[in-house]
């Protein structure tokens, strides 16, 4: 059975035109494979490209070279070669992503923001709302906050809304960028439980976990990234 994610010969650099065309080489010839149901933790010093790997898989960063094969059922899609519409469809059906920042339309209540992701994943309105409520409950977001827009929430609450949005659609591949940053230990444990349950239902996870306890609790394997050699 082919891997859920296969990266081959991935190069990613940034050309900073506003800095006289300086080139920042972040990933050089990176290859990796993640099996279905496996959790791979990316580790390495700041600036070694951990988040960049996640963003390349999600189709957010455009690599210079290489293949990014993501498997969905019997279909394999190379994210690097895919058209924007295909990437959007792949995100809805397959790729859950928890970023480090919550970026949402102002004025929209927290529960609607979470529910929206379940709707995009194909759930019906009633099911989507029930799932959103369930995951907010699991992440210990007080009920009186559900109907409020998260703009005024604390950092930890906003981060948990972000986690809820990334996990609610129960996609088969989860990309987690520091999902427990700025969370206290009880809330960290809640996130760990959710990730473990996702794995138990067969989800593949690639994550950056700064917190060692969290990493030990969810990761099957650790990949250490080194700083790419400057071109």
């Amino acid at each position: 059975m082919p891997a859920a994610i296969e990266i081959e010969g991935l190069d990613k650099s940034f050309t900073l035109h506003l800095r006289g065309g300086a080139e920042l080489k972040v990933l050089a010839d990176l290859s990796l494979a993640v099996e279905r149901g496996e959790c791979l933790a990316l580790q390495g010093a700041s600036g070694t490209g951990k988040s960049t790997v996640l963003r390349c898989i999600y189709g957010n960063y455009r690599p210079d070279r290489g293949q990014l094969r993501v498997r969905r059922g019997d279909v394999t899609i190379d994210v690097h070669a895919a058209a924007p519409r295909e990437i959007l469809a792949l995100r809805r059906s397959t790729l859950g992503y928890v970023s480090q920042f919550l970026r949402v339309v102002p004025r929209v209540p927290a529960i609607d923001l979470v529910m929206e992701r379940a709707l995009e994943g194909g759930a019906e309105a009633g099911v989507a709302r029930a799932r959103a409520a369930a995951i907010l409950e699991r992440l210990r977001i007080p009920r009186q906050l559900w109907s409020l827009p998260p703009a005024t929430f604390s950092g930890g609450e906003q981060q948990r809304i972000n986690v809820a949005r990334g996990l609610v659609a129960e996609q088969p591949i989860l990309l987690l960028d520091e999902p427990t940053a700025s969370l206290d230990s009880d809330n960290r444990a809640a996130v760990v439980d959710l990730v473990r349950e996702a794995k138990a239902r067969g989800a593949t996870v690639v994550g950056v976990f700064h917190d060692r306890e969290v990493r030990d609790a969810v990761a099957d394997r650790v990949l250490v990234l080194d700083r790419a050699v400057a071109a």
Partner: protein
Amino acid sequence: MTEPLLRVRGLDKSFGRVAACRGVSLDLWPGEVLGIVGESGSGKTTLLRCLAGELDPTEGTVEFRAAEAPFEDVYRMGEARRRFLMRTQWGIVHQNPRDGLRLRVSAGGNVGERLMAAGERHYGRIRAEAVAWLDRVELDPARIDELPALFSGGMQQRLQIARILVSRPRVVYLDEPTGGLDVSIQARLLDLLRRLVRDLALAVVIVTHDLGVARLLTDRLMVMRRGEVVEEGLTDQVLDDPHHAYSQLLVSSVIGA
């Protein structure tokens, strides 16, 4: 859903010796929201008006596909056909509501106009539809007989949207829909637009200079500079990993987009 509904190839538009758009090509798919960003004078609005049947391109083609119909060249079909499609299949929300509304006709009359153009003659049904659409864009149906001149800027924008959506178009073109509105009103309009796009499976082309609006509303972005498309891609690709020097300048100039 396997074919685009709008196909543009090699579009140029010049005014005298000034080239406003050069070599623009694009496909728009059902349910897709495409953003066009760039600074003032980059040709965004000209391009939008060419797509919407309002400005005949100097070169190139704009082809539209009505439901269960083949592609038709918007500028080579007859005038009557084009006017019919413009009233039923798509609509443009102008930056200045005065260009998109009849200010001497009641709010209800504005919404009913496109229905009448499409052949509806029954007064009761037209009024009922107008009430329903005013409500849908969060305008108080009790104000149906008022003139739009009495509405605030945000209300006039929403009235323009209702006026177009009543005919169940496949494409809506929006020219700086949040420009000139208070921030709180902008947020409300953004939320409304997002819900309408999702619920009605509309295709939308939105011209904006506000990258924050583009991030929250669009799937795909085209960056224009001096009439040319310098970069395009998924919205978050263009905003988070801009490749062209001009896109990098745009993104880096924004406060917290």
